[in-house]
């Protein structure tokens, strides 16, 4: 009986020691400080793919240190797209820099707005960045949009029109005349006789000149 008792006692002691060791390991890991959940961000600082443009982006939104709720996230996206709209109407390097920085924003909605803003800003200085970001983008649709924007910016602008406005009476008369012609054509079924087709016999060569010509 005695050796059996000693053996049981030793077995129990071993179990207690094993449990103590396990608990020590477990509690030791648990006491380690948790890793940061989200890094601080600002409106443009989330860029991670493309090289930053020459002038550094101006941080606009204060650092965020907590996980955004869906509402806060959407509000941040809306605020940034609003800012992109404003920047696109400016003509300064800082605005262009901010727009280009948002080409690599983690939010797709902001990146799309940034592409449109870059087009509206209308500067060929944006072309290298657009191409560089396109080269580092895995999203095929976005890559196409970036390259199309670069191609778009390389085109010459449509020159500003300078035909002065007609009088309201002239415009109303022209529209009424055209509506009547349209109605007549529909009634007579002459849709196939398009007087305007072709460049060799352009309608503008034979048609009455515009009111201001």
């Amino acid at each position, binding site marked *: 009986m005695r050796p059996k008792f000693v053996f049981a006692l030793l077995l129990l002691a071993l179990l207690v020691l094993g449990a103590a060791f396990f608990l020590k390991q477990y509690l030791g890991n648990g006491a380690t400080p948790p890793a940061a959940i989200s890094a601080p961000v600002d409106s443009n600082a989330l860029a991670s793919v493309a090289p930053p443009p020459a002038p550094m982006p101006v941080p606009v939104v204060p650092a965020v240190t907590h996980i955004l709720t869906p509402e806060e996230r959407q509000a941040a996206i809306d605020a940034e797209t609003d800012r992109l709209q404003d920047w696109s*109407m400016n003509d300064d390097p800082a605005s262009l820099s901010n727009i280009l920085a948002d080409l690599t924003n983690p939010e797709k909605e902001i990146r799309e707005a940034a592409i449109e803003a870059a*087009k509206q800003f209308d500067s060929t200085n944006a072309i290298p960045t657009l191409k560089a970001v396109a080269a580092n983008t895995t999203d095929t649709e976005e890559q196409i949009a970036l390259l199309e924007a670069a191609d778009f910016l390389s085109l010459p602008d449509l020159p500003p029109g300078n035909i002065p406005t007609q009088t309201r009476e002239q415009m109303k008369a022209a529209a009424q005349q055209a509506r009547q012609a349209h109605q007549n054509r529909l009634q007579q079924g002459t849709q196939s006789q398009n007087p305007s087709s072709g460049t060799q016999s352009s309608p503008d060569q034979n048609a009455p000149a515009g009111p201001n010509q």
Partner: protein
Amino acid sequence: MKLTKILMCALAVGAATFATSKVYAVPGPVTVSGTALSQDSKGGYDVAKKNKFTQKILLNILAQATGDSSITNKKTVVLYDPAAFNENAADSIEGYDFYGVFYYSNSVAGLQTLDGIDIDGDYYSYIELDYYNWLLDEYEGFWNGDSVEYNTIVGESKNKATVNGNGILYIHSDPYDYDLPDRDYYYANDWDGDYQPYAFVMHGPLKYGGSISGSTMTTTGKLSGSGDGLYDYNDLVVSGNASFKAKGPAPE
């Protein structure tokens, strides 16, 4: 589909709220960009010349059309409210309901509508966006099932619905050359001897959506398309896109 229905109900309530209070939505900015092909010649041959256009050209057209030079001299935003009932159009063109109102805004002119009724009681406008708004169940602009497609394909997620349809954006310097919903519609050409100095049409797929975030509802849309153009009375073939974003309080 349940979420979409909820969103639709919410949007409908919002529209009803707007109909009574007229302050439902905040008009949001409209942006256009694209390319224009025009006829040129080189070495005795016809060649196509390609130019780009941005919002600046839209503002230039509106400045020429309205005679308000502040549109190009100052920072001007073109705004669109898809949920707004267009009283001007409805009052002067009987038998139809019209939704969608365009404005421009700058520091000199303030907020100005881009349509109205003249002293003779006739309706006029400079810009229109025609489509069937599935979310609001409204006919936007001069939508007409004979000229603008009706079918819609919907995608949805939590508090958000996206609709794929088709639409027409028509910018015109002759304010009386607006489209009509009775098949009497016009494009930016001189087919019927209609000579106006500036006009752009873009007809094609329109993706629009509504999302509710907290107390705010956002409506966005993007039209991609092509069409005729007139510029200084010269013919164009244009392609490009137009986008809008309007915000307002979410229906309770």
